[in-house]
């Protein structure tokens, strides 16, 4: 009895594409319903995201955050854990980056600060994931609940720290002092313009390359190390994991530490790369959108990269649309983003069975010939 296979491209390309298309069609209807021209809006959106060099730079800047949070969700998901706490872990990861920069920017060169900031982001993000992980592994508290709650705690903690400890003395707003330039993550345009590549005056910075490196690292980790073998076993068959003598509690904790560290890297991009100071609410929903990115990217680093670019384009293109077509408010842009998340994430399986069935029947018919 031969099992017919669905071609790989159906699962990784066709189905996501179909879901996005449907999301855009419905978005078009919404825009049409408020009396605007959806084609025109789509034009602005695509132009805004990819049409000119600065737009491309912004798209990549947003995508950097989504890669980090998407990978964070992916690693946990592969071990059967649903980490909804990317938001809080990113926030606290940023705190780690900020503290390193504030402590060292007067005394150390970039080459020293950068690796320490990476470690700071990882350690703080991981620490924030550790408590829910411990509670899940040793006490059986469900990780979905605890990670959500930890987002709120992170938010309150940051307000407390900013107001009482970290607020700069020269400014009225709730920012820390601005870091010295040697604690800034270099913008890509400062590196690429001399090479003749133009990405405008956009905020995309070196963190983008760190994100790409993380994609590769996660791929290696999950599919090519024994540690990844254990986490995949745990994620697909926990009983088999016990049978194999895998310490499931230990793996659960380690997976969440890695997941939290990845989410924490958002701080590199936001704090060290763009804001150059500690401030409130810089995580701005990137952690939550990471869930959609991971789902859409089929929990594979390559897919996550592509999905992150798409969501980066939505953020950047959406901002452009509401600038050029004032009747389309930022709220409508959020609706469009929401529809994409809905169709690519929540309704992921809407077409899956039927399309796979179609290809299975086709393969079966071909086999009989």
């Amino acid at each position: 009895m031969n099992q017919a296979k669905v071609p790989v491209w159906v699962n990784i390309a066709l189905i996501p594409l179909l879901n996005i298309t449907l999301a855009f069609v419905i978005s078009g209807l919404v825009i049409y319903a408020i009396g605007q021209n959806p084609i025109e809006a789509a034009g602005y959106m695509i132009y805004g995201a990819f049409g000119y060099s600065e737009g491309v730079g912004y798209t990549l800047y947003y995508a950097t955050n989504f890669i980090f949070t998407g990978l964070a969700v992916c690693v946990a998901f592969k071990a059967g854990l649903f980490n909804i706490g990317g938001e809080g872990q990113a926030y606290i990861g940023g705190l780690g980056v900020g503290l390193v920069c504030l402590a060292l920017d007067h005394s150390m060169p970039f080459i020293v600060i950068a690796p320490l900031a990476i470690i700071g982001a990882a350690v703080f993000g991981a620490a924030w994931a550790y408590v829910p992980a411990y509670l899940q592994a040793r006490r059986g508290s469900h990780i979905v609940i605890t990670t959500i709650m930890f987002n709120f705690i992170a938010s309150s903690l940051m307000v407390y720290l900013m107001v009482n400890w970290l607020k700069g003395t020269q400014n009225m707003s709730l920012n820390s002092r601005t870091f010295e330039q040697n604690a800034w993550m270099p913008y890509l345009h400062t590196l690429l313009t001399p090479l003749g590549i133009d990405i405008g005056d956009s905020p995309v910075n070196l963190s983008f390359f760190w994100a790409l490196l993380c994609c590769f690292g996660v791929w290696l980790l999950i599919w090519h190390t024994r540690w990844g073998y254990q986490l995949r076993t745990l994620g697909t068959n926990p009983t088999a994991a016990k049978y194999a003598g895998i310490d499931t509690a230990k793996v659960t904790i380690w997976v969440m530490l890695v997941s939290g560290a990845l989410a924490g890297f958002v701080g590199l991009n936001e704090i060290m790369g763009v804001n150059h100071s500690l401030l409130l609410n810089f995580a701005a929903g990137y952690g939550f959108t990471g869930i959609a990115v991971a789902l859409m990217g089929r929990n594979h680093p390559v897919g996550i990269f592509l999905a992150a670019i798409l969501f980066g384009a939505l953020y950047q293109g959406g901002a452009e649309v509401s600038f050029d077509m004032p009747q389309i408010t930022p709220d409508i842009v959020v609706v469009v983003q929401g529809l994409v998340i809905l169709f690519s994430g929540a309704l992921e399986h809407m077409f899956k069975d039927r399309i796979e069935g179609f290809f299975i029947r086709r393969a079966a018919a071909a086999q009989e010939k």
Partner: protein
Amino acid sequence: MINTTIPYAIELRDISKRFGTVQANKDICLQVPKGSIHGIIGENGAGKSTLMSIIYGFYAADTGHIEVDGEIVDIRTSQDAINAGIGMVHQHFMLVENFTVLENVMLGAEGGALLRKGVSKARAELKRLASQYSLEIDVDAVVEELPVGLQQRVEILKALYRGARILILDEPTGVLTPQEADHLFRILHSLKEKGVTVLLITHKLREILASTDNVSVMRQGEMVAHRETSKTNKEELAELMVGKKVRLTVNKEEAKPGKVVLSAKHLSQLDSQGVKRLKDVSLELRAGEILGVAGVSGNGQSELLNVLSGITVMSEGEIHFAGEVISASAPKNAAQMRDMGMAHVPEDRHKMGLVTGFEAYESAILGYHNSPVYNGKFLMNRKVMLDECSERMAAWDVRPPNPYLKTANFSGGNQQKIVIAREVEQNPDVLLIGQPTRGVDIGAIENIHEQIVSLRDAGKAILLVSVELDEIMALSDRILVMFDGAVVGELEAKDANERVLGLMMANSYSDDPQGEPA
């Protein structure tokens, strides 16, 4: 045999069903005379369950139709099947355990928003059914407090209460002792005498021969033969099922037991609800012998395997193995037990022995994934894993010999070979084997049995847990019988027979030869 004047109780015409590329049923024709017991026999995966699901309305057939009493019926849901007078007793009972018998029977047929009227009607109707078919039962007993045989009776009553004239039983004896099974067959015969038609699905040849009027054999989705039961025999049916001649016995020499390699002393185990699943079990396992553990499924055998292999920690007692004493205060986990020379072929390969979503070469190292053989400094050595998997697939005749194929896509027998190969190739001192041939084709059973015997002859100590008495009797040198978590009997294989083991399994054996159960 064809008689056009009296319609059949149920007749299938050219039923076909395809799942993807798998042709589960192909042009199935079946005629079951009214008031007969009709057996349907076939290996796992032959399409029996699919066919029954079509009759009971779980799946729709791609082509063909079903006639009941000579009239075409359109069965799309199980409600349609019930309306057509078809009732089903599932292999795993569909009962609400903490409801009474009466409540279970009424479930889905309450007869209105308020229960009162329905209850008195159901009580009267059950009483009538019970006396008509001699299916006595206390209707106010809570189901979970009933023995398994009586729970099955509740299932039968449920079907009859809904007006079933055709009763389908799917592997009904899997959870019964031989004596309980005999009792079931007596009930089926009395149902038959009252005009009920019975369809009996099983893979046990013995039951077919003992209780049916006619038998149909399925193989690879097709109906390959129809026989009158009185005109066939075990060998012919086995050959029809497999498509080639099979040997039903195991050749083995006298065992030469060596020294004790593992001894368990007073093992007890509580589950998470605090129920004692294992009660004061002691045993000794010697090199070069096969110790069989018989018992009806769910009497502590799984817990025994889990405790011995280190998957769960015992609550009390000790295991002496490889020079170490393992106890609740000094436990070893499954990985440590493996390192000490214990291999374990688990009872349920899907839930435990394999990761069905993994490619075969990944499943083939489960439990040994930390071995330096498979690991470089940071990354796993995929080439070593693939080469070794290919070699083993060739040596153990795993088909198809493709290490990249997803584990789920191998047949049951080939999956089991992957597990057994993995455990045996480590050259362990002790091998625990649970249900070695569950869900395995008859053709592959022979091969697996031979492997187990040759391991014994190579001086391994083997603990064999199986609910198939035939298997226990064919392979074991010594037999323990478990009941309700405790060892209730031990005997040499040569003293064992089905009657003695059956009585022990029901814990109603006494040395008095007249000691039949009350």
